[in-house]
């Protein structure tokens, strides 16, 4: 990569402070505060209409916040014009200039800043996105994937401190999307700019980002690494937006050291962490792939005090659906109180097959349980994902898309 022109300072964090944007009476982004570390790959994940694109546009300068600040390091860029910020965008629909060649599209930013000898840099950039030799074509003569790479090249060539990606892979088919995900990640690592990626695709966010902010209704629901968000979702919304979860509501029975005993319809489950005084409402969740469906006789009686920790949390139920996907078998187990629980069983061999109609125990380790904040109304609506989805392996489920 060429030298980082126009950057006289070290890497700077992108900070959003109390950012708010209202369109008339509709609030798109509500008091959003985030620090995006320099050089990180950051994803804003949420369903359409959650305010993620508006946030991105405020960073780009295409939208002026109603309140709050956008800071690069200590420099306030809230009200700077788009062309006065060291920030470039890869637009959702690419927004390539149809009347200019690929070369001129890529060179556009450099030329506007008065750079004359752009040929070499442009060729280098096109090589980076594997489009050497396509320079003289028009955007209309390229495939979707190629256009997408031109859009990336056109933004990256300016060596922005922050590169904004607005659902840039949405228009591509699955295979190409995978390829571009890896490609973008590779480019980000080699260039070292801060990438802020807006997407509604949880899998895309998890594949690429170091840090994900899950947004909902203009607010950040949870912030963390993909693993943190997946293993310890804080809310029902996050638990179901990233992958799938079994969520249960109950009340606290007692606190045992660093664990809490929660009763759900008469079944006592152990949850890590302290969830409040006895009697207070508590919610918990477990991932379908962390749970097992065991034939009734294989599990110990539910009220036994000494048991295998892998069976410590156990809910009896009846298998109502079994679907074999090759990679795993997915069960739906109906509990005595009528709630459906999903169980994904890896096809590793060894476990006795369970059939529809069997009485089973859904069991999992206490440490795989995650406590959930009581569900809000908005989160409830967004989380209405049927569980489980047969025929799609859990990691590929296009939830929220």
């Amino acid at each position: 990569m060429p030298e980082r022109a126009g950057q006289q300072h070290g890497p700077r964090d992108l900070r959003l402070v109390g950012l708010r944007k209202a369109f008339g009476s509709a609030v798109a982004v509500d008091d959003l505060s985030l620090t995006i570390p320099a050089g990180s790959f950051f994803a804003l994940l949420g369903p359409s209409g959650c305010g993620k694109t508006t946030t991105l546009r405020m960073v780009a300068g295409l939208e002026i916040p109603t309140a709050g600040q956008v800071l690069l390091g200590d420099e306030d860029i809230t009200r700077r014009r788009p062309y006065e910020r060291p920030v470039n965008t890869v637009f959702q629909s690419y927004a390539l200039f149809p009347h200019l060649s690929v070369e001129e599209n890529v060179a556009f930013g450099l030329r506007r800043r008065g750079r004359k000898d752009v040929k070499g840099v442009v060729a280098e950039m096109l090589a980076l996105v594997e489009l050497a030799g396509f320079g003289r074509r028009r955007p209309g003569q390229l495939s979707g994937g190629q256009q997408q790479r031109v859009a990336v090249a056109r933004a990256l060539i300016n060596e922005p401190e922050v590169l904004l990606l607005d659902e840039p892979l949405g228009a591509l088919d699955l295979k190409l999307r995978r390829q571009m995900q890896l490609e973008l990640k590779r480019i980000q690592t080699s260039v070292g700019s801060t990438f802020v990626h807006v997407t509604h695709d949880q899998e895309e966010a998890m594949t690429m980002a170091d840090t994900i902010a899950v947004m909902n209704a203009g607010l950040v629901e949870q912030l963390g690494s993909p693993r943190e968000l997946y293993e310890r979702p804080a809310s029902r919304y996050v638990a179901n937006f990233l992958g799938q979860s079994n969520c249960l509501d109950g009340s606290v029975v007692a606190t045992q050291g660093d664990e809490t005993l929660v009763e759900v319809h008469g079944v006592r489950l152990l949850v890590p962490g302290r969830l409040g005084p006895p009697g207070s409402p508590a919610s918990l969740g477990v991932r379908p792939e962390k749970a097992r469906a065991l034939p009734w006789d294989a599990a110990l009686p539910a009220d036994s005090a000494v048991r295998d920790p892998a069976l410590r949390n156990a809910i009896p139920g009846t298998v109502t659906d079994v679907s074999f996907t090759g990679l795993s078998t997915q069960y739906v187990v109906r509990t005595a109180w009528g709630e459906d629980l999903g169980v994904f069983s890896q096809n590793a061999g060894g476990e006795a097959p369970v059939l529809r109609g069997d009485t089973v125990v859904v069991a999992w380790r206490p440490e795989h349980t995650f406590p959930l904040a009581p569900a809000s109304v908005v989160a409830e609506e967004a989380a209405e994902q049927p569980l489980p989805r047969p025929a799609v392996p859990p990691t590929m489920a296009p939830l929220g898309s």
Partner: protein
Amino acid sequence: MNRAVHAVRRHAVMAVGVLVLLYLFLPVAVVVAFSFNDAAGRFNFSWQGFTLDAWRHPCRVPGMCESVSTSLQVGAIATVAATILGTLLAFALARHQFRGRASTSLLVFLPMATPEVVMGASLLTLFVNVGVATGFATIVIAHILFTVSFVVVTVKARLAGFDSRLEEAAMDLYADEWQTFRRITLPLAAPGILSGALLAFALSFDDFIITNFNSGTTITFPMFVWGAAQRGVPPEVNVVGAAMFILALGCVGGAEVWRRVRAARR
């Protein structure tokens, strides 16, 4: 059997297509052919023999070349003015929300919908009432008036398909407002503006009715032809007509060749 039906169908479409083209171009062909006619009498209506006389000395007919020059001047001024005004109007209508936008949109159509006779007569009434002597200036004013609408409609149609994200992308890539307009907006709107301008010129060059009301003693080419028709149209009029046609054809053909050469170079 099936193949035969298919062949007939295909040729039927072809035949109809050729007939329609003939219908469209026959009058033009007649105009061009009769520009080479060695017309004996006052009228150039029957074929007398081939000659290049009219092409060699088109200006020997008194007043004709002056009228062509007048028409070209009127057309040029009216086109430039109408294109600028119409483009500005189209941008305002396509891009901005303002009070009275819907009614402006509607009013722009009015000059196109008004019968030319009505517009010509009312314009004359207006000029007489405010004491403006009719002549070259009033022709230009009238022509700008009735061509603006056509420019607005053409440019607006082009802007309707315009993706404003392209402008955002340009601004994101360090182009300020003026550069964005010059590098992105204008080049992309240019085909619309150009066809608007061509349309305005064609309408202006061709107009007789409105011009006739507001011309005073100035004579444009259509008025000259009308006047000449009373006494007999000389072949030189056909020369001007044929020349205009060939010029237009040359422009279109040239543009196509240029486009192909550019495409081949890539």
